[in-house]
């Protein structure tokens, strides 16, 4: 078992990082309700073809909370849902399964999966029209593993270098900017938004 000191020594374990979250902000008012998403997930959980294709398990209903993940679909390899952040509602994709390749490949796979599943979710008829669109060019990438990716300058630098080509390829080279949070208690996070020229 890894001790606290050993964990610190092995802090830069980015190469084996598998837990990565992606938030895709919605063009929706914070007053958006979680219930339509609960309804969608309620159908997904008994849709045998979808259960089999995505490895779905069950939903988690936290609609009673004022913020945070209010509706989640729990799957074998990920959580997908809608979370209410400071800036408003966002689709959250939380990767929990294995990942292959270097860090860039991992970021790329998770971001692409997040966008694909978000598209599938937002296309559901029960989702209100106002919540169907993702804010163009905006996303948040969270390294959800403090042991492998503590929020230190070295980790942020290494992760940023791996993330940049991934974002260039998807959002356009030079079309985005990313901000980070320096609080060492929090997870290493990149908030990506369109570059205003």
């Amino acid at each position, binding site marked *: 078992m890894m*001790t606290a000191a050993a964990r610190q020594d092995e802090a830069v374990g980015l190469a084996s990082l598998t837990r990565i979250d992606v938030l895709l902000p919605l063009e929706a008012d914070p007053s958006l309700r979680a219930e339509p998403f609960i309804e969608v997930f*309620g159908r997904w959980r008994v849709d045998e073809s979808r259960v089999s294709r995505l490895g779905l*398990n069950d939903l*988690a209903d936290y609609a009673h909370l004022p913020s945070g993940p209010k509706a989640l679909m*729990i799957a074998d390899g990920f959580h997908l849902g809608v979370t209410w952040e400071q800036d408003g509602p966002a689709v959250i994709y939380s990767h929990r399964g294995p990942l292959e390749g270097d860090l860039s490949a991992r970021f790329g796979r998770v971001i692409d999966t997040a966008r694909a599943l978000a598209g599938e979710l937002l296309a559901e008829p029960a989702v209100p029209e106002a919540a169907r669109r993702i804010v163009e060019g905006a996303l948040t990438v969270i390294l959800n593993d403090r042991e492998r990716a503590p929020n230190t300058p070295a980790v942020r630098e290494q992760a940023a270098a791996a993330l940049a080509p991934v974002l260039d390829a998807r959002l356009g080279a030079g079309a985005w900017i990313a901000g980070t949070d320096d609080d060492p208690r929090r997870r290493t996070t990149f908030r990506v938004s369109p570059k205003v020229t």
Partner: protein
Amino acid sequence: MTTPLSRPGSLEVLQPLVQPDEVDAFATTLARYREGKVAEKVFTEYRLRFGTYGQRQDGVQMQRIKIPMGRVTARQLEVLAEIAEEYADGISHVTTRQDIQIHFLKLEDAPAMFARLGDVGITCREACGNSVRNVTACAEAGVCAGAPFDVTPYAQATARFLLRHPDTQDMGRKFKISFSGCADKPCGLARMHDLGAVAKVRDGVEGFEVWVGGGLGPVPMQAKLLHDFIPATELLPTAQAITRVFARLGEKKIRSRARIKFLIEKLGFEAFARQVAEERGKLTEDPAWTDAFEEGARDVAEGPLKPPSTLDAAAIDAAGPGFRAFYENNVRSQAQSGYATVTLTLPLGDVTSDQLFGLADVCRAYVEDTIRFTADQNIVLRWVSLADLPALHADLVALDLARADGGTLANVTACPGTDSCKLGIASSRGLAGTLLERFANGLADLGARKDVSVKISGCPNACGQHHVAAIGLAGSSKRKGQSVAPVFQVFLGGTTENNADRFGATVAKVAARRAPEVVAHLTKLYDGEKEDGESFTGTMLRLGRARLAEELAPYADIPERDTAPELYRDNKQPWEYVRTVGVGECAGEVVSQAEFMLEDAERLAFEASLALEKGDAQLASTTAFEAMRAAADALLSTRGLLKSDGYDPVAEFEKHFTGEGAPFFPGTAAYIKKAAAENGSAPDAERLTRKLTETHLFVEEANVVYGKLAGAQVK
């Protein structure tokens, strides 16, 4: 998993709270289990003893994190937040035993999580399984004006001493301990615990009143007074002696009979007390007793971060919006002048990781580490200097942690229920969430009431503590033809006052979707019927079961599914409760003989309760037996037996529905034989009350078994 003893019962040296070797052992055992080298049932109990539960959903775990007395530090809040977002779904749930639970974990993540918790002094050891569970205590112990002394150090000593103690490793089931600072307030709940200790001072000596054998669950029992007073120095030896008797003589095979309350019933209280005295006599002085007290006192020492101050009326008026209501409902003066406790009410006991991180910062600014999770699923900050209250409130508003509903009806207690628990029958959280929505949308006056409380369990096991609420609701189901509807049993007459000295009794079984209307109806009934100064529970008891059942009858009626499909869905769940296994014949639904008989059994069970209420013990006793016999007949009818054959229902029931592999729960099945043996005689009051409880359980189980049989037949 046990430590060899050099002398019987003597621990000699108090073990460290956190043991890293244990985490390594868990990782190894998990790996061996995955390789098929550890039997499933062995590994299951093993992981349970580390708080790792299976969930209703396959392949994921619930982790219970043991927090003795609910005491946490700001740093521990942060680590709880970290592990919830990394390993779970970002939500921490405060339980009715002052624990934290997180959900949807992968089993493989457990060792790393244990290590991180261990780094901040938290162990999950014995959070579940057949062990001494989290020791609970009043969240305001030590700062409450009503208590003669602070029970926290004693509770901590007990938790530390019994953790991993060899005497507690071979118990047939769990063992729950609670400490209360006083005899009358509703915080400690000592009398619904396996062991309840209530603070008392005699001749200037700190000590405890000791209660044993209480418990909720399907067969609730009030604890019995073992000692009117023991000095505090006798607390640990007495607790140890009790656990030794429980481990030695308690039931090990039939789980439904394995709690200590059943052992006391089997032995008789006097004989049980003698056993405890004998065990106590065998124990030699153990240095660990003293060590535990000394360490306990050191562990829990606390004080204010800020000097005492005052808050005058003008400052209250000048504070931000919402402060007055928060101040009136959520702030309580401490025994120490110039300080208050502040309760943060959590909807359904849930709090996000972002909130916990923010709260840790807030705590560092105002109180540092004097934080406790409460048995009503909230968080209490202690030692808040009065002048800080407006600023603290503003900071809590920014974290969405300033709900002003402390002590109100809106502060509903609910267990996880069908959201994640394998035992859940109905959605306790769905009902609680629906109630919160209604209170926020048009029923604010109802939600703001302080004279009524609601506690909800998803099944009869009572993790939501429904027996001790003004209105208790316990999940169940009701078959109607080939469809099953979620329902809640309504319990009235319970209380948390006086350490929960009275449990509610069931008066009706209502459609789950209509339970919010039931809450509104009962409060309206109380308003119309109460006499001067009468409590809600007092009014309900005075009105009596028959009247209450009549009042709730409209909510109990569940029409066929085609007529009222919404009643076949649970609260907050826009899908069918159970898929119908109907035959789909155009001739329509066929109601079997068994269903009629089961309905008859339910009716008889209720009539038996009424007879008891009217004081007719003989009638109550015989009717209870008739109810069980009707339920047995119902099941026997599925085996082709006809009542007109004149068979012996008890013998035939035993033959068809008991024994290895039989569908009927063995502990419950035994009730009919016991009732048959005593039929015709007039049992004493205590036995009769138990007999009626057993009758309800037997009938309930017959319904469950029939449901399974009916499903199997259709398939």
